[in-house]
Every structure is written in C-alpha cells, then in structure tokens.
C-alpha cells in the first residue's frame, strides 16, 4: 500500500537504494510493527521467568487479572486515536461502568448480572457517542471536550457510589477471575480475546474500519473522497465508550467491588499502552493487538520490580524509558518502510 502512495515517494529519494540489505531492512520495516509487540511480551515473560524460576499458573493468573482492565482502556483509546482523535474520559467512563455494575449487581443472580452487563455496555457506547457528537458538532478540540466530560463522569461515579462497595455474583466474577479450561489459561485472557475480537474483526473487515483509518490518516483527503468524516469520528468515540464500559466491567470482575476512584487511573496508563503498542498518536496507523499486548508488558514491570526488590519508584522511570525507546523505534521503522 505504501509503495503506491505518491506522497511518500519524494521523501525517500535521498536514501541509498538497491541490494539485499535494503530489502531485508524493508522486510523488517514492514513486519516489525506486526511481530514487535508479541516479541517484546515474549522477552518480558522470558526475563520474568529467568529472575523468578517458579513463575507458574498463579503468576500467569496475577498477570492476566492485572492487565485486563488496562487492556480494555488501551483498546478504547486505540479506536479514537486511529481515527485521529484522543479520549481523555476513558478512565472516568471505566469508573462509572465499574460503580454502576457493582451497585446494581450486588443482589442480582448470574442471569440478571449478564443482562445488567449488557445494559452497561450499551450505556457505555451511548456515552462514547455523546462524546463524539459533542466533538464533531461543537468543533471544540477533542482534548478539551473529553477532559471536561471526563471530569463530569468522574463526578457521576462519586454520585453513584460515594465510597467503595457493592459487589457482583461469584459466577459473574469468575468470567474473568476463574480458570475454567486450564490452571495456566485464565478466563481473563479468553474474555479479553473474545471481547476485542467481537468488536474489532467486523470493523476491520468491513467498510467502517477502512473509513476510521482514512479519517485518521488525512481528514481533508477523506472528506474529499466522500467519506462521512463526522459519522466516522462519532463511531470511533462510540467504540471507545463500549471498550471503556468493558474495562469497567473487567474492573468489577477482578476486584469484586465498585470503587469510584479506581478507574480514573486508566486514562494515562491506557495512553502509555497505546504508544508502546505502536499506534501513531497522529492517527491512521496501528492496530488493536499492539496496545492490548502492551498492557501485559506494562503490568509485568511492577511484578519484576517486586521479584527483584528494586525501589518501585524506578517503575515510572522504566515505563518512561520504554515509551521513548518504542517511539524512537517506531520512527526508525517508518523510515525503513519507506525505503525503495
């Protein structure tokens, strides 16, 4: 696709051309974004088992539980960022979904809990759509709009539940917290793959996905090609709201309670996972698997610090360093990909 893009030809003219070396570099440029994240996660896991040889089913379960809400937060952010926007209300929406679930499911049975979960997912999607509609109709920058709605949802979460509490039926919690198939295969992982696939695969295969990428790459060009830019952007925010609601439900499953302040933390962490996962903040480039896997890598950092007994304040330093390295590597890959 890139080779057919006339706009990128001029930029690569000064680079040396010809030879197997360039071909292999171009290969790396094309496939590194695809294999890079699984590779990084594999390295992180190998490193963890090396420093902690007894790493086993219990630890895999810890990892999956820790990463689940963050993975959904990263997925939510990914939808909007690929469409060329940003959503700073992800964390607060997670908080609202979390307290809403925990307060309504407390005395529900499993079937009712599932119905309530479906309702919360719909409500999440609607909230996301409202975000998108405000951004599109008011033409106020998305940063401002979502920051503001983020504050509003943060307040709503506190109004629903002043302090931590509530609960959900055990069967519902086990959807993430259990290990039904095998001790080393937590339900959280299956749930995550299923939930992301159900939303993402139809999007990627259908026309809507193409439009989201088109709008994110170049809004003006997309508009001139007849793409409904406004509806596409609203769609991206709607999906963000849906994934945020999933994050809130995941938080309920992994903690078994609602906590009005717990979700807020995921806005920035989700963005970190997104950047490490290879999604371009300028829009139009990246996939959903990168950020989701990055959530697992980010969750492993504090784990390794505990195993190594290192001052945990280094956790932020390591996370920051990782982001810078990945972004640098991303730029490097772009240069390679454009080589002819």
């Amino acid at each position, binding site marked *: 696709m890139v080779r057919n893009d006339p706009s990128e030809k001029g930029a690569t003219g000064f680079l040396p051309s010809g030879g197997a070396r360039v071909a292999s570099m171009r290969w790396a440029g094309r496939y590194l974004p695809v294999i890079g994240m699984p590779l990084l996660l594999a390295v992180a896991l190998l490193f963890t088992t090396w420093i902690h040889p007894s790493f086993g089913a219990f630890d895999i379960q810890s990892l999956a539980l820790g990463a689940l809400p963050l993975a959904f937060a990263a997925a939510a952010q990914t939808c909007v960022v690929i469409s060329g926007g940003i959503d700073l209300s992800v964390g607060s929406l997670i908080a609202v979904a979390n307290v809403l679930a925990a307060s309504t499911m407390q005395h529900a049975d499993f079937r009712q809990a599932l119905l309530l979960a479906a309702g919360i997912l719909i409500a999440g999607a609607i909230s996301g759509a409202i975000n998108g509609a405000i951004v599109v109709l008011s033409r106020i920058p998305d940063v401002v709009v979502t920051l503001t709605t983020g504050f509003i949802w943060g307040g709503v979460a506190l109004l629903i539940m002043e302090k931590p509490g509530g609960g959900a039926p055990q069967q519902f919690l086990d959807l993430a917290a259990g290990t039904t198939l095998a001790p080393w295969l937590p339900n959280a992982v299956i749930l995550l793959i299923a939930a992301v696939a159900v939303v993402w695969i139809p999007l990627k295969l259908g026309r809507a996905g193409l439009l989201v990428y088109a709008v994110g790459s170049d809004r003006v060009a997309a508009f001139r090609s007849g793409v409904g830019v406004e509806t596409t952007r609203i769609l991206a925010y709607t999906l963000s709201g849906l994934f945020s609601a999933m994050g809130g439900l995941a938080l309920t499953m992994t903690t078994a309670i609602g906590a009005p302040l*717990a979700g807020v933390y995921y806005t920035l962490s989700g963005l970190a996972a997104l950047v490490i996962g290879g999604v371009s903040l300028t829009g139009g480039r990246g996939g959903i698997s990168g950020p989701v896997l990055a959530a697992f890598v980010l969750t492993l950092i504090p784990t390794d610090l505990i195993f190594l007994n290192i001052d945990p304040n280094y956790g932020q330093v390591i996370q920051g360093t990782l982001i810078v390295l990945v972004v640098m590597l991303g730029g490097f890959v772009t240069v390679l990909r454009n080589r002819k």
Partner: protein
Amino acid sequence: MRTSSKLLYASLFTILLSVAGAYSARAADKYVVGVSNTLIGNGWREEMICSIKAQALASGVVSKVIVANRNAGPAEQISDLRNLISAGVNVIVLNPSDREALNPVIKQAAARGIVVVAVDQAVSAPEAYVLSNDQVDYGKAGAEWLFKHLNGKGNVVEMRGIDGVPADADRHKGFTEALANYPNIKVVAMPFTGWALNKSAQQAKDLLASGKQIDGIWTSGLDAVVVDAIQTSGKPLMPVIGADNNGFVGQLITLKDKGFAGAAVTNPPSVGGAGLAVALDVLQKKGDHPKVIKITPEVWDNTSDVGLATLKRNYDPKLDPYYSMDYTVAPYTTYTKDQLLACKGP
C-alpha cells in the same frame, strides 16, 4: 543506521543486566517482609514505610523488606499482593486501597501461611490483622475540642481529605457525631482538599477572602498551610485543628503568644512499624494479639499545660514541616528515632 540499532540493543541489554544484578540471594533463617502501598510522593506514607523498615531492622529477625509502592487502585494492589506472595514473603504489611476488594487475595496469602496486617485503614477479611488509628475518633476528638473552645457557638469550616476514601468518610462521621451535640455550631464550608498542600492553601485563601464569618477551621491534617493563609490574610488568628505535623506543632508553640489556639490530633505513620511488630509476634508465636487493634488518637492542645508540654517535647525544628512527630506506637514499636529517620531496612 546499523550502528544506531546496535547501540539500541546494547543499551537495552545493559538495562536488563543491571536490573538482574540487583537481585540478591535471600537468607534462609530469617523472615521476608512484603509491603504494599498505593500512594506515592506522600510524606505520611513514606514515613510509614520507613517505620516498617526501621522496625524490621530493630527486630533482628527480618532478612529483607520488599516494597511494592505505586500510585494505583485496588486492581493494581491485588496484583502487587499476588506478586508479593509469589516472591515468597512471610509477612505482608499493607495500607489497603479498599476495604473489601483485597479480601480474596488476603485469603490466598493466609492459606499459604503468610501473616497479613492491614495498617492505617481496615480490610474486612477475617484472616487479616488490622492495626489503625481510630479515624472516627480522630475526626470527633478534634471537632469536639474546637466546638468546646468556641463555647458551642460560631461558624466553622471542615477541610476534608479525598472524597470516596474510607479514612475521609470515617473522619467526617466523627466530625458529624461531635456536631450533633453542638446545635449552634454551623458548618459554612466543607471543601475537599484532596490532601494536596497547594489545593488546600488555595481553598483556605478563597474562604478567608469570601467575606464569610469564620470562627474556626478543622483540617484533615493539612494544617500549617491554613495557618499560613490566615496570617497572610491579616485576619485575627482563629483556632485551627490539625495533625501532629512538625510545622503545625511549631506554630502551636510559637504563635500562642499572638493569641493562636489550636490542637494537633495524632495520626502516627508508625502504625506501619507497629503492624510489622504484631506480625512478627504472631510468626514467632510470642503472645496473643486481637485481630483488630485500634490506636486512640491523642489531642495535643496549646491551651492546657499538659498539651503545651507535649507539643514542646515533640517539636523538632530540624525536621520537615509535614513530618509526623508521634513517631512511636506503644507498646509495639521498638526502633529509635534515629533508625526511623535513617529509613534503612536490614
């Protein structure tokens, strides 16, 4: 291009190696202590962790203290606790981010013979020991002193902590209980300071400039900035309730001559060290401890002779304004003040 990518891999590898180098072997005959905390960059919490390290050193039976410390919510604390279990600790001292959410993982820890002590705030898991300052009493004792000092009449401000946090809710409960006995005391403002100094200072300035009649201020521990704000505003010094923070203790002593009345209610961070002492007793089967231990806060006022003497005894001009001066919890902690200040574990 090639050199830069080599450099990248080399630096990555160096980071990995240096991280691995810090990994040290564990002594077999002594206990390993895990600490879980979810609020960083907070002076009180840092002092709490220091008190755990100091007590670990003073006890002589701890080989290593592993600290899991980051800004996070219950979901992250659950994974921190699970990681501490994996790391093979014998004791977990935690400041819980939630009362209920950690119960399943505490149960798992207890099943593996790990002694779990929640300090500062409670957890509801029956397996865990809970050692905390009585926060309801904290709110009540300070409020009662203030209302009594105002002769049961006047306008007060309640400067709270973080909305949605158990300690804040408990202190507010105590404050409200005290208020019920004083019908002529009116609460004119109830801002949430977020336990942040800059925010608290701004709120105090705004309130003082608002033109409202304010006769006394109750704070949830961010005290010295409020006294500073009153002084800057040029208004007469109204009574202020704070905590046993060094700076505020100093103000209570030095501003007494200018007519400043107030009281410091103790909220010792050394509940951390005390919690560890209890856990080590349980591990070594030395004596019985109840599962729930409540520390009753003391009120150090500058209007009584006893209170003033206590304030003067605890004040240390060399230390930070927000260092908590009630640094031991009798009869549990055994470290010295120097050990606490050094903040070094075994």
